[in-house]
């Protein structure tokens, strides 16, 4: 199968790419002519909700993102926060909801792989992971399959890669019957003076492809992540990506080794819409053009078209701008780790994104417009209706309180989640001080006598449904409390905003109000949001998930010898209730 670049662009084709007629008008203007088929694919990848945040950008801008501790806020692969002694913590959370619903093991696994890559692309060695999971009711016929696939996928990838999972959430509710949520968090530690960014610098420098080969995995995946599910979901299956944690572990070691060698000018991992997004981002940020020669791209399948290569979401790949004099050294490092290393293009000074394939120029687009001029919508929204307080007296008092407590504790949502986190390696790296099961996971900072980092992930979606503003605030406050409860000073946070279809004003209202609540709480607590992710269109047949703005936070314990734990209680201790 080859896809010709000369396929005529019809309104149907435009629609199938998730591009509206108005957006297409704009695309034609910016291109200066009808786009080619490959170009249409590139535009759609850059302008879909997933990559461009076109529905949420206006509101995300209102979040507090700065503070004396913040070294890098949103906009890079991950946020960076100072932890003193010349070191920083690099972290982010990202969703892989739609892929996990379609193929739970691989969807969850590649979600974990993606977030780990975001962290080590910046030069940080990952030291902790969390996963916030939401499934339909336990009785629903799909739930068991999804839970077992997702949990083993999260573990399968993280355990093999070698990062301890120190926290997370598992919750069941009928509103997730048609859309499970898989939000993966990762944090790493780097030297403050050795952070790597995606901004390309310098004209005529080699653009290098690193990691695994390109296949047809997930072609159209970014488009899929931005579309609502219908009953035709089965037809979307061939876009599944398969994760290879072994290759990712090798990629981690090779990248960190390469970074110490001084060869790297800019680096960007290939996530959604792989080669397209990574190359455009590097060029657009650096005010440079990029020219790619697809004949040089390592491929694992025959006769791949330019369109497929540009949109492939094959995992475990990176793009880098290299200091030319370091080429041989860099190559040797990648050969040692058994990874592909190929010069696939160069930086230019003409601000064009040019793609060559088999002697033909299959795309030639303005790079800044691709990267920065995605549409931004001020979608109509309505104030979410106020929920009536429930009158407690309408419920009969339980006859037997002990039995009632047992029922609560034994329920799927309240019971211990040990059955989940025992499938994750919580100890690897030898620095775990508090495992899942407490208020926050704690990991000591390698090579430091007393310092440790605390991690927690929280949100209570039913509160957000009742009142998105208060629910957003509450998620931040709970995360903050979990960090302080182990004795950590909260540093900063990351968010993963999971909502339904933003084209519906009531859903857009949830998003707007939740962001306002999160912003207010973060502002009040001095707990800036330094990275994040938005996942919209979590709906099946018109029914949306509960609004789920997951908040993950990082705190610093200057001295872990005075850390608090939930298990330190002894008989006869007095119990205090603090707070309002």
């Amino acid at each position: 199968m080859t896809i010709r670049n000369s396929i005529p662009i019809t309104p149907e084709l435009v629609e199938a790419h998730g591009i509206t007629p108005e957006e297409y008008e704009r695309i034609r203007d910016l291109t200066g002519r009808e786009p080619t088929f490959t170009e249409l694919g590139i535009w759609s990848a850059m302008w879909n909700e997933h990559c461009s945040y076109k529905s949420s950008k206006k509101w995300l801008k209102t979040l507090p993102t700065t503070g004396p501790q913040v070294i890098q806020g949103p906009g890079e692969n991950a946020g960076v926060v100072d932890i003193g002694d010349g070191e920083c913590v690099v972290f982010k959370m990202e969703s892989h909801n739609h892929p996990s619903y379609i193929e739970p093991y691989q969807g969850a696994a590649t979600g974990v792989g993606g977030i780990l890559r975001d962290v080590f692309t910046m030069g940080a060695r990952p030291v902790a992971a969390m996963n916030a999971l939401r499934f339909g009711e336990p009785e629903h016929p799909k739930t068991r399959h999804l839970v077992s696939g997702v949990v083993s996928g999260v573990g399968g990838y993280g355990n093999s890669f070698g990062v301890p999972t120190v926290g997370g959430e598992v919750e069941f509710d009928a509103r997730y019957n048609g859309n499970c949520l898989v939000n993966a968090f990762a944090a790493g530690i780097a030297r403050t003076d050795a952070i790597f960014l995606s901004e390309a610098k310098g004209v005529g420098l080699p653009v290098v492809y690193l990691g695994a080969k390109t296949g047809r995995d997930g072609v159209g995946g970014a488009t899929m992540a931005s579309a609502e599910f219908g009953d035709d979901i089965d037809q979307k299956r061939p876009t599944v990506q398969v994760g290879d944690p072994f290759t990712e572990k090798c990629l981690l070691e090779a990248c960190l080794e390469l970074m110490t060698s001084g060869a790297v000018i800019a680096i960007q991992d290939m996530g959604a819409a792989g080669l397209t997004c990574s190359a455009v981002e590097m060029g657009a940020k650096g005010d440079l053009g990029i020219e790619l020669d697809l004949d040089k791209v390592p491929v694992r399948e025959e006769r791949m078209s330019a369109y497929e290569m540009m949109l492939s979401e094959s995992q475990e790949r990176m793009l880098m701008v290299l200091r030319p004099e370091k080429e041989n050294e860099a190559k040797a490092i990648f050969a040692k780790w058994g990874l592909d290393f190929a010069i696939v293009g160069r930086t230019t000074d003409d601000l064009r994104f040019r793609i060559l394939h088999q002697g033909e120029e299959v795309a030639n687009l303005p790079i800044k417009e691709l990267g920065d001029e995605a549409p931004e919508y001020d979608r109509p929204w309505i104030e979410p209706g106020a929920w009536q307080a429930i009158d407690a007296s309408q419920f009969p008092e339980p006859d037997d309180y002990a039995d009632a407590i047992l029922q609560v504790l034994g329920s799927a949502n309240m019971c211990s989640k040990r059955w989940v986190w025992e499938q994750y390696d919580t100890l690897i790296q030898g620095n775990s001080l508090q495992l899942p099961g407490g208020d926050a996971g704690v990991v000591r900072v390698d090579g430091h006598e007393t310092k440790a980092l605390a991690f927690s992930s929280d949100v209570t979606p039913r509160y957000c449904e009742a009142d998105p503003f208060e629910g957003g605030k509450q998620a931040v406050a709970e995360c903050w409390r979990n960090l302080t409860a182990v004795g950590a000073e909260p540093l900063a946070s990351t968010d993963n905003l999971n909502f339904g279809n933003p084209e519906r004003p009531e859903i857009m209202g949830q998003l707007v109000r939740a962001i306002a609540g999160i912003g207010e709480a973060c502002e009040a607590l001095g707990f800036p949001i330094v990275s994040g992710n938005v996942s919209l269109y979590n709906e099946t047949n018109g029914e949306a998930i509960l609004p789920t703005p997951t908040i993950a936070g990082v705190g610093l314990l200057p001295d872990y010898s005075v850390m608090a734990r939930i298990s330190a209680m002894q008989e006869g201790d007095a119990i205090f209730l603090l707070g309002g």
Partner: protein
Amino acid sequence: MTTARIVVTLKNGVLDPQGKAIEGALGTLNFQGVGKVRQGKVFDVELDTKDRAKAESDLNAMCEKLLANTVIEDYAVEIVEE
């Protein structure tokens, strides 16, 4: 009794990290001229029936429901012995 062999293989184009690692290892062990290697699974299943048609339909159902992940895998059922 019926004995069947089910072979489950990855669909074309789906990444096979195991196959890839094996290709590399065969190279390290100095085997020449090894092209693609793809790894799959085989299940040998004993069924307590002599009815071939029923056995086949049951085995196909087992593949659909459990043994194969039809999102990324194909399967083939073969009756070995009746």
